[in-house]
């Protein structure tokens, strides 16, 4: 439980620092920390496979795409500073987010959730997951495969330099 609290603080700290940072590269790297923390959360909950998938996809792949995008859209300055758009917008965003946070936390604390605890960590082996993916979730898996292929081709077509 203490470990869980520590990871939670780490995730939230890294994510807030990332969103508030003026250095885009630092933002991206801090977000990678937050994503790794989320993977640790999954690991704690017993979702081993999902945790490693999260680490592989976010820490390994998405972070690289983000960093490459930051470098490719940099304008001269090495520090890549980014201004806040306007004070009005920032204040408005904080008010909205604070309101949402208040409502959500209030709802969570007010709900009778204690009843569901107990049950030991459910052991779902990789084999079971694989059978599920190839069984009842096979259509979804196919669609995700098509989606990823289309996204890959689309990303290349959009980002590629036009010739002539």
């Amino acid at each position, binding site marked *: 439980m203490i470990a869980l609290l520590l990871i939670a603080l780490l995730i939230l700290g890294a994510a807030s620092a990332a969103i508030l940072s003026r250095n885009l590269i630092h933002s991206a790297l801090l977000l990678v920390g937050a994503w790794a923390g989320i993977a640790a959360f*999954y690991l704690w909950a017993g979702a081993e496979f999902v945790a490693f998938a999260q680490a592989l996809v976010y820490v390994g792949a998405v972070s690289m795409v983000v960093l490459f995008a930051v470098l490719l859209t940099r304008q001269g300055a090495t520090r890549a500073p980014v201004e806040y758009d306007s004070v009005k917008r920032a204040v408005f965003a904080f008010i909205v987010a604070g309101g949402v946070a208040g409502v959500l936390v209030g709802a969570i604390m007010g709900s009778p959730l204690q009843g569901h605890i107990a049950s030991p960590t459910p052991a779902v082996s990789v084999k079971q997951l694989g059978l599920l993916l190839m069984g009842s979730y096979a259509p979804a898996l196919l669609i995700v495969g098509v989606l990823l292929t289309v996204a890959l081709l689309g990303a290349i077509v959009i980002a590629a330099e036009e010739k002539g």
Partner: protein
Amino acid sequence: MISPLQLFLIVSSLLFCVGLIGALARSNTILVLLGIELMLNAANLNFIAFWRYGPHPAAATGMMFVLFSIAVAAAEAAVGLALIIAVHRHRRSVRLQEANSLKG
């Protein structure tokens, strides 16, 4: 004392709000996209929380949902960042407010 489930949910809702601030307050398109990614991750945390403490953990529905959600998020990041690079090439800017030529 709060239960682990409540801790999970609170972390996920706070993470969602951090992402929301990123998406609303920042003007850099990349940061807005990252804020949206964070919100997606917060939703994934909820799926895992309810899978773990829900009535049917053996069915692994929550895990399945998160796996598919990660795949979709990866596709979203790839296409989104490709769009940002394309916009940057045309307008020399990554400010979200400046990509408004289709605005009525």
